[in-house]
């Protein structure tokens, strides 16, 4: 059976004006099963966010084949939604209006999208903040809005681009736990990009370690820890073994990046 998401030989070179071209991805392959939680980790600049944007349909690869459920991805689509690192909330919209954005662009009638938005606001624990503006919210709350907005369009695939990187450590821990709960309830396919080994190990079914630029798959690790996972699990020796394994793969790439003077 073909995997739910299948990326083959994805290659993308950025050609900025007045600067040397940068090959972000080179022959990158990835398979993702339906309902799977997969994390991409790698040195910064290795193309993990680029791949996410290719999958989202905002960037076109120079070469390669990208399929979702057997269909070629050519642009943005409703079966995919992104949670952005810097939240990407419209500052002139209230929480509920921000959550409604995707539905609005889909052409869902006002009453229906409002109802759906309220439901998701409840799901992410923001009840009571519907009429607040983003600048009145903390970072964690903003990302809850980002998550609710992504879930509102009922995508099959949730793409998350270092969604908790801008949050403080405690908020981050809390958001990770809540994301897991939501994921277990909604059974979305999640592709999660992160810098944090701990985050990747805690959340994922599989962790893909990428090489330094241009990004390729270095290794794929299975996280065979039982679910549901709780915070205490992070203290177990098994968890630390997985972290050590990821670190072992990542270390060389960080070194390579360092010696390349990047």
């Amino acid at each position, binding site marked *: 059976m073909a995997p739910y998401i299948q990326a083959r030989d994805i290659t993308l070179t950025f050609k900025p004006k007045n600067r040397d071209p940068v090959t972000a991805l080179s022959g990158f392959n990835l398979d993702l099963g339906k309902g799977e939680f997969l994390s991409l980790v790698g040195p910064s600049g290795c193309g993990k966010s680029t791949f996410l944007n290719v999958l989202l*349909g905002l960037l076109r690869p120079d070469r390669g084949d990208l399929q979702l459920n057997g269909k070629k991805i050519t642009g*943005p689509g409703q079966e995919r939604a992104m949670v952005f690192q810097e939240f*990407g909330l*419209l500052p002139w919209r209230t929480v509920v209006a921000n959550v409604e954005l995707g539905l609005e662009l*889909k052409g869902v009638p006002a009453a229906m999208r409002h109802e759906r938005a309220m439901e998701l606001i409840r799901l992410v624990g923001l009840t009571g903040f519907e009429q607040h503006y983003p*600048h009145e919210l903390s970072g964690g709350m903003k990302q809850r809005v980002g998550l609710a907005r992504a879930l509102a369009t009922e995508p099959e695939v949730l793409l998350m681009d270092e969604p908790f990187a801008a949050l403080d450590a405690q908020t981050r821990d809390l958001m990770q736990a809540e994301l897991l709960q939501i994921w277990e309830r909604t059974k979305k396919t999640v592709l999660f990009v992160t810098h944090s080994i701990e985050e990747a190990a805690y959340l994922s079914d599989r962790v893909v370690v990428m090489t330094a630029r241009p990004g390729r798959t270095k290794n794929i690790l299975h996280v065979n820890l039982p679910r549901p996972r709780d915070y205490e699990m992070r203290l177990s020796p098994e968890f630390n073994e997985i972290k050590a394994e990821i670190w072992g793969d990542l270390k060389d790439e960080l070194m390579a990046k360092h010696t390349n003077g990047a």
Partner: protein
Amino acid sequence: MALREKYDEYQRPILGTISVIGFFLLWEWVATYVITVNPFFFTQPSKIAVAAKGLLFGGELWKDLAVSSKAFVWGFSLAVIIGIPIGVFMGWRRRAEYTLDPFFTALYASPLVALAPLLIIIFGVGLTGKAALIFLLAVFPFIFNAFAGVKSTDRLLVNVVRAFGGREKDIYFKVILPSILPYMVAGTRIAIGRGIVGIIVGEFYAASEGIGFAISRFGDTYRLPEMFAAILVLMTVAVVFTEGLRKLENIVAPWKAGQEAR
């Protein structure tokens, strides 16, 4: 103690009021006891107040204000209707920016009132000539603020709307227009000041009515109290508008109050 707290709360308006009243008292005192010279060349607040009362209740000034306002509304509306689309276009299309920028920058920087005689030759002494001058002075803040507004539009938000399936039209209405709104309010504030200069200069050059004409006529006939009264009325109008717009800025864009382009 309570009085002290009240004072701290209202320190700004209290000190502001005291300083304005103090200024007029000082003026009155200097004009009465220190510079007791020819009333042809100098006047004092008490006489201005009497003159202002006469002008405001005599109805004379209202007619002049109405005439000037008409020219202002015409010139200003044209500046909005023409300036904003040009600015947005320049901000959105790089070629348009490169082509038009030298002209607009030169024109914005130069003392356009110098063109007043020319405009009056072309458009005549009446409403059209004045409106043309007001337009010419007021249009550039709209162009440059719309331009700066588009330029400062957050690329992330454009990508967010694209990612959720938005088209060009959605990017335009859901991202660009709301982004430039605070810039437009700031631009309006600058344009009002420049437009008022346009009225006054236009009416100084050639007019038989209007507030600028009134000021110039009072000056020519050495009716200094009336002249100052007319100037004070004009100042009041300008202050009311610009301060009102500052408030409006906080209302339309509470997330970034006080943005200004040029």
